[in-house]
């Protein structure tokens, strides 16, 4: 059973809720190794998307929703996360194309396109202690699940779990990209805020898919 426009819209709503709930946590993570604005930035962005969901024309596809998120994040978030997440959603939207329903392989493709977009813009490699360290295991897990024939919800669940593990795994790393890199060795021992927000967003996607699947 594929994920449709309802899932996409619900995912955005759930994302906004989850980011708002974790706003302070993300600020705190970013304060420790960055400049303390990541939670505020992401919250500003997702709160700005919410009212726009109501204006989506009838017949919109999941790709349209991803595009709406992309342009809104780009024009409201700022900082590093704005363009990077904006690119992720934009490339995801392109990968989603005009499909009205997304199956497991489609989801895996979208995630991979999103991750590749972030890499192209931000030039981070795995292990640099960035959101890429959540996205890369997520993309790999999704691809594996999809290849094994899993449905969209199961693909997202695997991606979310991998992203969560990836976010945790950023803790011992020394940052080599983003603001945390200026700290050098002192960046070790802290979780990367962007990896954490990535895990939260993917978990929201999986949860909403699970609910849609009526599990």
């Amino acid at each position, binding site marked *: 059973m594929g994920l449709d426009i309802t899932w996409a819209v619900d995912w955005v709503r759930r994302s906004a809720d989850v980011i708002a709930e974790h706003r302070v946590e993300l600020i705190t993570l970013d304060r420790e190794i960055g400049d*303390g*604005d990541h939670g505020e*930035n992401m919250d500003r962005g997702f709160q700005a998307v919410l009212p726009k969901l109501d204006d989506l024309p009838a017949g919109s596809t999941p790709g349209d929703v991803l595009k709406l998120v992309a342009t809104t994040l780009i*024009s409201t978030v*700022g900082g590093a996360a704005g363009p990077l997440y904006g690119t992720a959603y934009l490339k995801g939207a392109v990968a989603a194309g005009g499909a009205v329903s997304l199956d497991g392989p489609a989801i895996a493709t979208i995630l991979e396109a999103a991750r590749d977009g972030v890499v192209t813009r931000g030039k981070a490699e795995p292990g640099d202690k960035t959101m890429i360290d959540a996205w890369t295991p997520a993309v790999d897990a999704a691809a594996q699940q999809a290849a094994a024939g899993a449905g969209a919800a199961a693909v997202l669940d695997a991606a979310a779990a991998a992203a969560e593990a990836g976010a945790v795994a950023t803790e011992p790393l020394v940052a080599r990209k*983003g603001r945390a890199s*200026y700290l*050098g060795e002192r960046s070790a021992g802290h979780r990367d805020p962007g990896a954490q927000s990535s895990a939260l967003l993917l978990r929201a996607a999986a949860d909403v898919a699970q609910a849609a699947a009526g599990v």
Partner: protein
Amino acid sequence: MPVKKIINDPKRVVDESVAGFGRAHADIVRVEFDPIHVVRADAPIAGKVGLVSGGGSGHEPLHAGFVGFGMLDAAVPGAVFTSPTPDPILAATKAVDGGAGVLHIVKNYTGDVLNFETAADLAAADGIEVRAVVTNDDVAVKDSLYTAGRRGVAGTVLVEKIAGAAAERGDSLDEVAAIAERVNANARSMGLALTPCIVPHAGEPSFTLAEDEIEIGIGIHGEPGRERVKLEPADRLVERLLDPILEDLPYASGERTLLFVNGMGGTPLVELYLAYGHAASLLADRGIEVARSLVGNYITSLEMQGMSITLLKIDDEMIELWDAPVQTAALRWGR
């Protein structure tokens, strides 16, 4: 815990402050709000290269305080410590385009670079020629191969002044970009903090320091520095900043410099001038001529206590452009 600041709503700080700035300096700038940017009152100026800079707020007077005759044509203030999004950068770029192209002066932070890049792409699509100079004068960031690169800090002010004067005298976009690059290439900075700052929306200090600790190699975003040391006398602190600067860009005896002692916002002038005095002595000891000086709070981190020192290896043309008239809210001479 309430945030102890003269603000109303943390989410409205930048809008309200920029509105007040526009009112106070209506002879120099006009302020647009949708999207937010600050433009020279007489922009666009036909045939003049337009200079646009911007970045997170909280570094005032940078950048809006440097908009005006002989310096920037527009400034784009983001949320506090958060680089602005492409929309206002694009709007500012359009507002100052006088047909001779626009130079973006961008501090080297991932967010700033990415957002200015996007805006530049969009402006180019609208037929505006845009060049970008990315400032990265902060020697505190070592191993720049393994990082996002050096940060743009106080040297940015010098780039804006000197490139602004070049644009004002009628230089082409290529020429203005070249002199901006030259200033950046010859500027080196390093900062320290005695106290952290509190971002309004965060409500908590950006880091904590013991009563007797200071952060060396601090950036301008309340981010922690590179190392933490015990408080020392001012003379020693000045050396801690000057030594790595001079190591990174050595001076031969007789070479000239512009010595810039910048306050991070909360440090009284009395301390900045005291530090300036020792820095000037140390340079004199090495036979380096302090040809020009700047002392004060020009690129800050809200109420952070601390300072940075910048040396710009200066040549005759840079001196001429530095001395050229400037009329902005925060830097003014010659008119």
